[in-house]
């Protein structure tokens, strides 16, 4: 029954919130965890769950995303039957919401013959088995199954996310936005399952039914009209809604328990495009503590509590602390970095002292020379 689901990924969702990281790329291709891009998690989850027909809806800035996913081979999604498809925008109709994006790509959903559609945001970081959620969806004969996680909502965090009230049978009885919900909540992961015919019906009648938002017009307004059930994701979960959140979630990868939960869930691994870098080289003068170091790095200096992507070079007498250095960043002699995020191919010259704060990391944009 697994191949009865079609995957749809929103490649450009929530981009404004994360600002600088998406100047040159879609949110789905934002680097994460030393060698990954955000979309790797969803593509791997789908592939690991037997979903081999996947469309990625893109709107803007998607060159880097296309380059990254290629034919989908790395995720075993280069398939004769199904496989990975990029769904670029129709230039006449620029869309902003998930619903408009779906309408724009409704041909993809119409032309498929899977029974279900799995919808997922492109910035979701988790290791999730859709096949279990699909079995749940089928068992409840639901119209929509939303996947949620339990989370304590304090002041100011999780803006604009859906929170669900559910009954004993896991049916959603109420859905509200997170600014109206406090305390322990069932918060949407922005992964959900719908019947394909059901979704098509809504898409085709979206004018009559006055639908322009998936959250508001279908889920919040539809709790009585439709059978909406909720399925809990219990493992690690992150989605990127601000640059400080991006930083915080990245640093969580230094916690081995979270890392294991994310990268090896019962043998389900996260795949990414291979770069064929040489192994990481630690020189005689290197001193590395509590850090993730990807292949292709050459470390001569000190690195602490940091995440180094592929091909990063840290010179002797350089100190990198609490920082995230993207692919091919070079840090020269005598330089000190603290709470810095460097985008790809940044070169920080000798004896620079750069520091941000964990709540407001100092971001250096792509190809800069500082």
């Amino acid at each position, binding site marked *: 029954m697994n191949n009865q689901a079609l995957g749809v990924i929103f490649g450009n969702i929530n981009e404004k919130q994360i600002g600088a990281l998406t100047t040159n790329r879609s949110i789905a291709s934002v680097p994460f965890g030393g060698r990954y891009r955000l979309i790797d998690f969803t593509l*791997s989850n789908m592939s690991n769950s037997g979903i081999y027909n996947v469309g990625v809806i893109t709107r803007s800035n998607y060159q880097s995303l296309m380059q990254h996913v290629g034919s989908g081979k790395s995720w075993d999604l280069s398939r004769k039957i199904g496989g990975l498809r990029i769904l670029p925008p129709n230039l006449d109709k620029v869309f902003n919401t998930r619903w408009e994006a779906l309408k724009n790509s409704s041909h993809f959903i119409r032309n498929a013959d899977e029974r279900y559609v799995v919808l997922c945001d492109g910035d979701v970081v988790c290791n999730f088995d859709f096949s279990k959620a699909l079995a749940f969806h089928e068992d409840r004969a639901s119209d929509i199954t939303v996947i949620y996680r339990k989370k304590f909502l304090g002041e100011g965090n999780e803006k604009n996310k859906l929170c669900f009230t559910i009954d004993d049978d896991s049916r959603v009885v109420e859905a509200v936005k997170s600014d109206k919900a406090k305390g322990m909540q069932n918060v949407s992961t922005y992964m959900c399952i719908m019947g394909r015919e059901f979704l098509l019906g809504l898409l085709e009648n979206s004018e009559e039914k006055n639908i322009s938002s998936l959250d508001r017009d279908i889920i919040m307004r539809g709790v009585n009209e439709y059978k909406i059930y909720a399925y809990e994701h219990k493992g690690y979960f992150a989605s990127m809604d601000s640059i400080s959140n991006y930083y915080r979630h990245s640093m969580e*990868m230094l916690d*081995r328990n979270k890392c294991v939960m994310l990268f090896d869930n019962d043998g389900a691994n996260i795949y990414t495009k291979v770069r*064929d870098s*040489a192994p990481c080289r*630690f*020189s005689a003068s290197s001193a590395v503590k509590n850090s993730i*170091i990807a292949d292709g790095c*050459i470390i001569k200096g000190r690195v602490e509590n940091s995440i180094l992507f592929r091909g990063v070079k840290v010179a002797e007498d350089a100190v990198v602390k609490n920082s995230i250095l993207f692919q091919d960043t070079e840090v020269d002699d005598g330089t000190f970095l603290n709470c810095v995020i460097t985008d790809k191919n940044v070169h920080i010259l000798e004896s620079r002292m750069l520091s941000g704060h964990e709540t407001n990391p100092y971001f250096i944009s792509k190809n800069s020379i500082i």
Partner: protein
Amino acid sequence: MKKKKCIAMLLAGGQGTRLYSLTTKVAKPAVSFGSKYRIIDFTLSNCSNSGITTVGVLTQYQPLILNEYIGAGEPWDLDRANGGVHVLPPYQAKKGGEWYKGTANAIYQNMHFLDQYDSEHVLILSGDHIYKMDYSDMLREHIRSKADCTIAVIDVPKEDASRFGIMDYDENKLITSFEEKPASPKSNHASMGVYIFRKDVLINELIEDEKDELSSNDFGKNIIPTMLKKGNMLYAYEFNGYWKDVGTVTSLWEANMDLLESRFDLNDPAFKIYSRNEALPPCFVGEEGEVVNSLVTSGCEIYGTVINSVLSEKVTVAKGAVVENSVIMRGTIIGENANLSYAIVDEDVTIGDGAVIGDEMSSKHKITLIGRDVEIESGAEIESGSIVDQEADK
């Protein structure tokens, strides 16, 4: 199908007996090397980087892991619609099948492959050397000189010369003599086991050689000397880069250490070495971890100390453990406070807490070898130079 100028035949059936327990379950070309590679990656990457996209890999001894590793050849960009990489095991034909008698016989038995692709030239390679070489340059020379056969040659130290095929050649690189493993070598020009033949010449020679019942059907021992005797034009192609035969425990260890001394550069974006790798997160160095002058790769977790060592994928070094001057292959777990020096530890080994591998006599000539899947008990002491494998356990 468009014919290719040159296809490659890669001899990967070597048993590698001098690697002892490292090759009890895998063929020598599939032995791990240099943190994230296997020995055969170098030859396959050379082919790919030289534009040679049809490669027959001749396997024989312990082929399973090697076959699985090569697969459809995607990691080396050798999954091609026309050509690509093909594993060629010995097979049972109508007249019966047999194991390959020698290197030349291995090619002889797969002559149908040569005929199928019908290229003008055939490159013969062996899958057990570490080097980066652009074969297209050698092919150009081979075509320019109109040679029947061109042999890649590297100058080796005099004292090692008797381990190789040794040749003499004139100022035009025309080979004048060739002796396989001579007791008293006349020169130090050693054959690298890399040959380019004109295909028609090769086929002829293989058929002739097969008829000779006294022949050991070997390129170095039979084919090359016979061709010289008959007056064929054999040319030498000089190679000056890094080249290492990793046929012994010491040479395998040395070649790994050469990577740490930057004698061999894996980091050249213009000539990458490709390999098949599992999906693993990047390496993690813990709060008390220390990694000095070492190569480490994806999936490794380092909580102890690693000095002058090469670690493959998914190696864990627990707190307080010290790994020094060692080569640790994939999936091995080194327990707390264990101590390793001058060791080669094969894949999926578990070293118990506090175990000591090697002693004050350890050196590159006294490497301790721990075979695949072995479990070393906590607190065990293993003498330097010993070989521990699963067979010995029983």
